[in-house]
């Protein structure tokens, strides 16, 4: 099962390309790494056995890349999974 959500993050480096590469190497090839109005995010589409496991796995990716997670955003369509 694939779960979509967004982690708002503090990157481990101020170089956006270096940060993106670090996320990719930490297993984030299922993500979109970007900045929205100056706020950094990583939008995931992660395969996992459960929503909870997908988010935990994504957070590990961010930490492994050297960043920090500030917030989790869940799209409406995933709210049912998140509530379980």
């Amino acid at each position, binding site marked *: 099962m694939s779960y979509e959500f*967004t982690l708002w993050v503090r990157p481990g480096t101020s170089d956006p390309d270096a940060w993106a590469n670090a996320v*990719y190497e930490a297993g984030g090839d*299922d993500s979109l790494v*970007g*900045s929205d109005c100056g706020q950094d995010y990583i*939008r995931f589409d992660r395969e996992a056995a459960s929503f909870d496991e997908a988010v935990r796995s994504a957070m590990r990716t961010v930490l492994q890349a050297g960043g920090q997670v500030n917030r989790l*955003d869940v799209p409406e369509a995933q709210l049912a999974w998140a509530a379980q």
Partner: protein
Amino acid sequence: MPTRTPTPTIREPRRSTRPILTMPATLTNESDSTPASVPVAAPPRVAVGAVSYLNSKPLIEGLDELLEGHATLRLDYPSRLADDLASGALDVALIPSIEYFRGQNYEVISDACVAAHGPVLSVKLYSRVPWGEVRSLALDEGSRTSATLARILLAERHGVFPKLEPLPLDHRTQDSSADAILLIGDRAILPPQEKFLGTWDLGEEWLEWTGLPFVFAMWVGRRGVRSQESGVRMEKHDNLVEVTYVTSSSHSALRTPRSALANLLSAARDLGVARLDDIARREAPLLGLSLPTTVSYLSENLQYHLGPAERNGLKLFYELAAGMGLAPNGVELRFRQDCSRSPHEAMMHPNKHIRAAIEYALACGWRFTPSQGHAFGRLWCPEQTREDCHFSVWSTPRNPQGHARYIRSQVDACPHVHTDTTTTEES
């Protein structure tokens, strides 16, 4: 924003739009599905005009096909194009450089141009007397840009301001008694029929004197006038997706058709440059030129990319022309920010879904910069401040189609309206 808000952002007053279709959201593929999949009424097309001289063939090669559905293309004389651009009959035109300065409220909208970094071959000044003694100058009909350039070079290099006289197209140089004669086009490429004391290739003289390239023609549009710009927008309200045909009165929220047009003009240039040999084979016999000369002219004498050096050359040309009273004072030389990047590199992504998504972003006024490592490149919104939006595009994402879908939806979610992304060169 991907998930931060459950309600759509309306970026302009709704009263200025005309809804033409509503459909249940469940009928669309997804909440951020693209307008291209929805049947809608065709918007009015952008009117594009261009000269069809040999030197501009590489810019318009295949342009008709590329513009199909986006714009109409008309080929005409430079003076008529300039007049129609000024009057609003054309939205965008490939016009001689001097016409930009004589028009009002213009901007350069594409990085495609006709320029020379040295000998241009098709613009020559012949003299029967020493350059410093030129008192009369016969001007080939049809090029005010080259005529201005010739007058600038004579004035700046030799301090002469000759009296002008026309040289009609059907007249030979022997029919004129002027001290110097300016020839353009194939008449200039072919060897002269009489012997002259001095010969200037104006592209070469300009480069030697200024160290800069000379821009002969460029794609120009009227700034802030978008009467022909239109588009289709989708908004999700509750359980309905409203498809809106946006007209000139509501252009502020458009996905910059002019940016899309700029990309198409660059793509046409890239296509033309790739087909220079074919163009030469087709055009050489029509003009009575040899094939090697035509190939050399198109591929070595001319350049087709408007970069920083060309901008500087254009700026200097304007300053000199204005200083001599040959162009109005106070004209701003404006370039669209996104006209300095070719979409060519961006379109090399190996996955077709991601290529299409990148093309969508570029058409919406986003810029692409290549990256190293796992990222193929980065897409930047038009904001260009610390508060902008940008993201990486992977070379090999785990799920290419999903990655492409994310790219499109991030572009759609960007709040920065980008209908007026221009830069101004101080003149």
